[in-house]
């Protein structure tokens, strides 16, 4: 396991489309483990492979309200309703902004064993799925933000 380097806004990899995963390999399993570790280290609730520089369609999500989820080749099948709220991204550190997302989504994806599953989500999880799936298409939340980004305190103290 390792914590990977998170790419930040301006890195061109974040603007590219990720490729579909055809089969699970040990390297990709390792990638998934590392993505979880990286997400937890930086207190994210979701992370997409392009954010660690890998253009494959893999995302990990843990909103803490539901169990951790791996989604390989995710597709959003249905969506409805809307929620406006603030959102941040590990690739845009120290900032947040308001984004409107559907309040309900139904998605399909494959797990780490390439078993297909469907998931229905509302509220935060629905928001997280949309945010991460956007990353696979090279879309950042800053493209959708309403109004200005604002600073989120991030003062660190030395022990």
């Amino acid at each position, binding site marked *: 396991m390792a914590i990977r380097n998170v790419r930040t806004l301006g890195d061109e990899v974040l603007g590219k489309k990720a490729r579909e995963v055809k089969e699970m390999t040990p390297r990709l399993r390792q990638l998934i483990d590392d993505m979880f570790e990286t997400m937890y280290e930086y207190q994210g609730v979701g992370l997409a492979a392009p954010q660690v520089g890998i253009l494959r369609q893999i995302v990990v999500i843990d909103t803490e309200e539901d169990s951790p989820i791996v989604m390989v080749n995710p597709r959003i099948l249905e969506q409805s309703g809307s929620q406006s*709220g603030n959102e941040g991204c590990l690739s845009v550190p120290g900032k947040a902004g308001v984004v409107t997302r559907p309040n309900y989504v139904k998605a399909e994806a494959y797990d780490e064993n390439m078993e297909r599953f469907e998931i229905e989500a509302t509220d935060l999880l629905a928001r997280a799925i949309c945010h991460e799936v956007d990353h696979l298409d090279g879309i950042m939340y800053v493209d959708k933000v309403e109004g200005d980004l604002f600073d989120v305190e991030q003062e660190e103290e030395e022990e």
Partner: protein
Amino acid sequence: MTKTDVRELALGILLEVTEQREFCHMALGNVLEKYQYLEKQERAFLSRLTHGTLERLLELDYIINRFSKVKTGKMKPVIRNILRLSVYQLKYMDSVPDAAVCNEAVKLARKKGFSGLAGFVNGVLRSIARGLGDVEYPKETREKEYLSVCYSMPEWIVEKWLEEYGRQTAESMLKAFFLGEDTTIRVHRDRISQEELKERLEKEGVEVRPVEGFPGALTIRRYDTLNRIKAFKEGLFSVQDVSSMLAVEAAEVKEGSFCLDVCASPGGKALYLAEKLKGTGLVEARDLTDYKLKFIEENIARGGWKNVRCHRQDARVSDETLVEQADVVLADLPCSGLGVLGKKPDIRYRASRESLAKLAGLQREILGVVWRYVRPGGVLIYSTCTINREENQENAAWFLDTFPFEAEPLPGIFRGFTDEESIRRGMCQLLPGRLGNDGFFIAKFRRKRENHGS
């Protein structure tokens, strides 16, 4: 994706208030302003957590110190405040599971760069979560200590109130500060009737109740922020405690009068005076700085009043143009604020015996200037939002001794709020509690018609 951690915001506010002596309502207000888009529940959680932690601070520290070898005074500020807000959740917020409180605290400690102390935070919180029911409080016979911990009030204030009011009244006051969850508003009855406004607010999902004994006053609860209430933006009501309204009532102002509010910010009382004048006369609202005048101007703009104007003036400095000009001078002066501890829980940790004495001196200095603005036969209202003899009764007595004024009985509306003796003597100390009002002092003086050698 990341999300805003409300506990991290709460920690930021606590640090500002406890370590940098920022005012709680300012620090919280700034954060709510900046994070406009937090969900209603998140905003409510944040307000409750910061306000609650501050109003229970001494009790929380007492609990922490019974479980931790390192005492709160020796801890790093970040760790101390993480523990405080976590213990508040453990003890006072049943909706948050204990395990979540501990986990969030540990995460927050790590995020703030204290990974090495995450184990300490976890250990202390888990033992508090287990042992919270068996915490030994100071014995009830040791009155001062017991009341101080139970009601999180510095011992010197407890001692002072025990001396001045006795155990029973002191304790009911201490209790009352925890009840102030409602907001009191004054209906602008020149624009809308009380019933109509009540109906409109209820349509917006706000819970509304009338204040007994005071027509035009309502209490509201269960709203998000005032600025999202349409009727507020339209200037149909303002937020004002009943005791502040009473200070204005005491003046019994007549149409066409010239009224002077010498320390007016944020302007609530001045605007109530203006309303009472029904568009006639003039109210001049003064205060020390442009910053303070800005609040008054905002309030005037919201209501669209024409007979109010603002003026920057240090109340300690005499303005010769106003001598004997005013029909009513309202001197609601800077004070120690011990009557509004329910709304401003941090005041108690800032105040000291020395600061109280200093404020009493400042009040005398201002009164010694502004009495001259009252025309012979005019009225001066002296009020404070505190409970402290030195600032209140003693200053009022000094005023009567020193200047050509007489005490004047208070009007009938006071009947529901104080005793006959106070009404007759023209000065009353409202205690917080029974009626959900703040602790407040109001005295009414009328200037003698012949000016005896002053």
